[in-house]
């Protein structure tokens, strides 16, 4: 099998056109997409960073005093009253909002400055802030009264957003909306739980998108497209190596191999291993060059690269299995239509579904699901989980899919490959 492997690698190295497709093309695309879309991906927060004005009309301490008095009037037993007040003092809505706005992770995105109403309005007009968040008078008292005692009309935050920075002000609007929704939701759960844990604990407020920004490593465009292009062009390796099989068959070389008393499975194995090795090398070269030239990844982080190599190896095996299937089909049907259709159409569709061109998060759920079952899509997910330093348990799903695809593709290729005497 080593003889077949060596031969395929040697032929590939000598074929400059194929080398240009497998290595040159993805590198050029990484450069183009990396520079062109550097502001779009979440990793680059500079273009989204904003200053906002916070107008504090509420007196939190006075609100808490009033709420304590209200509790006393309600006839609630003293121990319960004390418990609720302790919790309210620690985690009043106003405090939680301040916490969100001053969150370390969010600081890159939002700089909140406390101003009076007049200064805030002037700042908005001068376009030095993109939004004014007004915490109205009696906010603490009204919010606590509604949340805990279900009395009164509650309170609402007032948000005035600028037109000159639509994207930033929209993002800030979402942050505030997420905060309010989260607060209301947890209060509702607390009520359903008969008043236990009436208020969310400080530091545990779920604020959706803001939370996710603060807990993961952001991805920049060069990182994303290094991964995206590498997983896409890995599929071309399968087309290239199986394309060689077609030439071998039409030029009688395959028959010559059969005449040497080698079982076709040995030949198929050679193709699969050659594709695996080429894919692995292709990834190593692309990641290394992208890190060296575009600074996509830190080359000195040993453990990080270990994970990258592991994911690469699993995808490379899957590409090897895919190559085996394409080779077997080429041998069975005796034409290269399958390989041509695969490289000319299927790879592009897989690349789109798998998120090589653009993240699939904004696409319909069905597209995301389909993409997750493509070898490139599953590998892209695994790489993103690893690069963003997310929960490692999340790696099992994409890597499991890649392993399953590998087994299925290999089994199919063994079933399809013509046996001896049928060449």
């Amino acid at each position, binding site marked *: 099998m080593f*003889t*077949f492997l060596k*031969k395929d690698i*040697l*032929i590939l190295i*000598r*074929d400059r056109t194929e080398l240009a497709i497998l290595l040159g093309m993805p590198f050029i695309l990484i450069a183009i997409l990396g520079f062109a879309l550097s502001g779009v991906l979440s990793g680059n927060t500079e273009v989204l960073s904003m200053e906002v004005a916070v107008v504090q009309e509420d007196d939190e301490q006075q609100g808490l005093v009033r709420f304590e008095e209200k509790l006393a009037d309600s006839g609630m037993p003293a121990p319960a009253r004390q418990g609720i007040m302790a919790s309210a003092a620690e985690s009043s809505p106003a405090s939680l909002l301040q916490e969100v706005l001053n969150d370390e992770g969010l600081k890159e995105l939002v700089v909140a400055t406390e101003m009076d109403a007049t200064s805030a309005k002037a700042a908005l007009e001068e376009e030095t802030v993109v939004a004014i968040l007004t915490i109205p008078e009696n906010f603490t008292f009204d919010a606590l009264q509604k949340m805990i005692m279900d009395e009164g009309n509650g309170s609402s935050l007032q948000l005035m957003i600028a037109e000159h920075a639509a994207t930033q002000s929209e993002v800030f609007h979402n942050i505030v909306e997420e905060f309010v929704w989260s607060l209301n939701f947890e209060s509702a759960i607390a009520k359903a739980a008969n008043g236990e844990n009436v208020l969310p604990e400080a530091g545990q407020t779920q604020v959706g998108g803001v939370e996710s920004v603060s807990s993961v490593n952001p991805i920049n465009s060069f990182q994303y497209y290094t991964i995206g292009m590498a997983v896409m062009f890995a599929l071309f390796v399968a087309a290239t190596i199986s394309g060689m099989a077609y030439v071998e068959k*039409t*030029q*009688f*070389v395959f*028959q*010559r*191999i*059969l*005449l*040497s*008393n*080698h079982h076709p499975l040995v030949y198929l194995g050679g193709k699969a291993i050659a594709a695996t090795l080429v894919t692995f090398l292709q990834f190593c070269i692309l990641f290394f060059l992208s890190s060296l030239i575009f600074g996509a990844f830190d080359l000195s982080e040993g453990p990080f690269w270990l994970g990258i190599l592991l994911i690469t190896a699993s995808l490379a095996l899957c590409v090897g299995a895919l190559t085996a299937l394409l080779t077997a089909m080429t041998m069975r049907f005796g034409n290269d239509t399958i390989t041509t259709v695969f490289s000319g159409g299927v790879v592009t569709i897989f690349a789109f579904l798998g998120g090589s061109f653009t993240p699939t998060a904004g696409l319909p759920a069905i597209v995301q699901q389909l993409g997750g079952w493509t070898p490139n899509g599953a590998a892209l997910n695994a790489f993103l989980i690893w690069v963003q330093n997310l929960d490692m348990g999340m790696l099992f799903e994409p890597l499991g899919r890649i392993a399953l695809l590998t087994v299925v593709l290999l089994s199919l290729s063994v079933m399809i490959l013509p046996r*001896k*005497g*049928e*060449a």
Partner: protein
Amino acid sequence: MLETEELKKVFKGKTAVEGASLYIDKGESVGLLGPNGAGKSTTISMISTLLKPTAGDVRLNGKSVIKNPAEMRKVLGVVPQEIALYAELSAYENLKFFGRIYGLSGKQLETAIQQALALVGLKERQKEIVKTYSGGMKRRINIAAAMMHEPEVIIMDEPTVGIDPQSRSHILEMVRKLNKEKGLTVLYTSHYMEEVERLCDRVYIMDHGKIIASGTKDELKSILSSEETVLIELDRPYPEFFKELQSLDTIKQASETEKGIKLILPKGSRVLGQVFQASERHQVQIINVNVQTPSLEDVFLHLTGRKLRD
């Protein structure tokens, strides 16, 4: 040594070969002649164990190789019509690969490579990439690749197609030496009758999937022993004159050649007078008349009604 018995191959309801029986003795050189589509390549593929026959058998030293092709493959070298080489690799790398897949390694492999290169006269250019070679050089390496494991039997499927006269002559001389000096058993197919006449002891003629004649060159020529060939050289084609000759009962076969007309006549028939009379009627300018004994080409034409390269 090698024989086929009533070989038959049907592809999608169409019979490509039917009842092909032939034999080759050890050290013999046998030609397989036939026009395009006669079934030669299909027959060769079945003998090579690359294609399962629909019916019939292939035997090597009396043992069937249909179910056990390994025995045949050990002693068989095949030179296909295609250049079955890796164009991106050098001649040396190609031979190394084909030697390795036959289980050769180390010194044994190196010796086999150099012997094969010496055989085809390309030792000096072994490191050059195959795609830079001329057609003739590629054909020679194609033969060398089939010789790497020192086969006892070699099947050559039109090994001189599309090459220059010098390379062709080199290949023919090489095959002759392999057969006569090294005792290699050869099954040779070609479109060139002179190649078969030069190299082969016996000839099988195939047409429409069937073997229609076989024997030594003299035996085959004796099919036409009661006949003679007349070559009439003309200054240009004369269709009406040709039609009239075709209609004469005493002429067994008339065919147009590059330079004029070829007639096959019963020996001693006094038909030339009629030919000259017809030429006068049609104002034909005859340049030369040559009376010959029949060649294998004439036998082929007589048997199939077609020229070999039709």
